[in-house]
């Protein structure tokens, strides 16, 4: 499990360089998210393009990553695979997060300003 980050506009885009966020990797994911978002940047976008599968533990770790943000920080998601999208939809977590089809679409979002 490795996460990398880059800045697009004012957003910190975090790329998950792993095929799965699941029970074996959930704690590592959460710890790295804490390190990367600790700078306090206001807008965080989690890019899941390389992630083909998220189980309930991975979903819990993504929610925990949002909850550990400081006041004033927001977390959005981008590039959900069909399986990952299904897990978010069935648990209704798709109603909690702003979800972008891909990273190219994030700058079009009005919340970027």
């Amino acid at each position, binding site marked *: 499990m490795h996460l990398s980050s880059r800045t697009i506009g004012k957003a910190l885009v975090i790329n998950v360089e792993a095929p799965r966020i699941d029970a074996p990797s959930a704690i590592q994911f959460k710890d790295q998210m804490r390190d990367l978002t600790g700078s306090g940047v206001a807008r965080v976008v989690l890019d899941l393009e390389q992630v083909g599968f998220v189980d*309930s533990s991975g979903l819990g770790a993504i929610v925990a990553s949002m909850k550990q943000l400081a006041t004033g920080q927001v977390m959005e998601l981008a590039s959900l695979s069909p399986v990952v999208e299904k897990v978010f939809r*069935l648990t209704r977590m798709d109603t909690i997060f702003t979800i972008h089809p891909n990273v190219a679409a994030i700058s079009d979002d009005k919340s970027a300003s």
Partner: protein
Amino acid sequence: MTNRLRNKSERNVLKMKNTFSGDDLIFHTHFSSDPLSAARVTEELIGTISNWCVTTGSLANIEIVVTEVINNIIEHAYLEDPDQPIEISAKAGSESVQFDLIDCGKCMPESQIPNGRQMDLTGAVCDLPEGGFGWHLIRSLAQNLNYTRDSGKNHLTFSVTIGQQ
């Protein structure tokens, strides 16, 4: 996960060979209750089923359900003890795959399958649930769930509907 076949005739040949018809045992193995063994077995299972002409969506449903069932065994039946036995088998019918999971861990709460209600997401962000999604996912995607406890063993059976390509 899909069979990327170049032309229709190849697809038809494969379909003739690999369409589920009866209740054939297509997968059976024993493994220990550590997360990496669980991930390996799930990958093997999905690899086996993907040899048949099953839709990508059906494969995804199977992967989600089996992963959550095994996660629950590891976390709740075995309390994350990594050296305990789990047995899984899968039988393929024409419209569904039937699964059978056996473990020797703790009994389900009140000897029943948890109801898997939708979690409450209406509160503040700090109150959002970080767990409890597993049974909701299983109940959303699996059919014919049945649980029995016998001779110190948990026995869970269920099926997942498949669409054949």
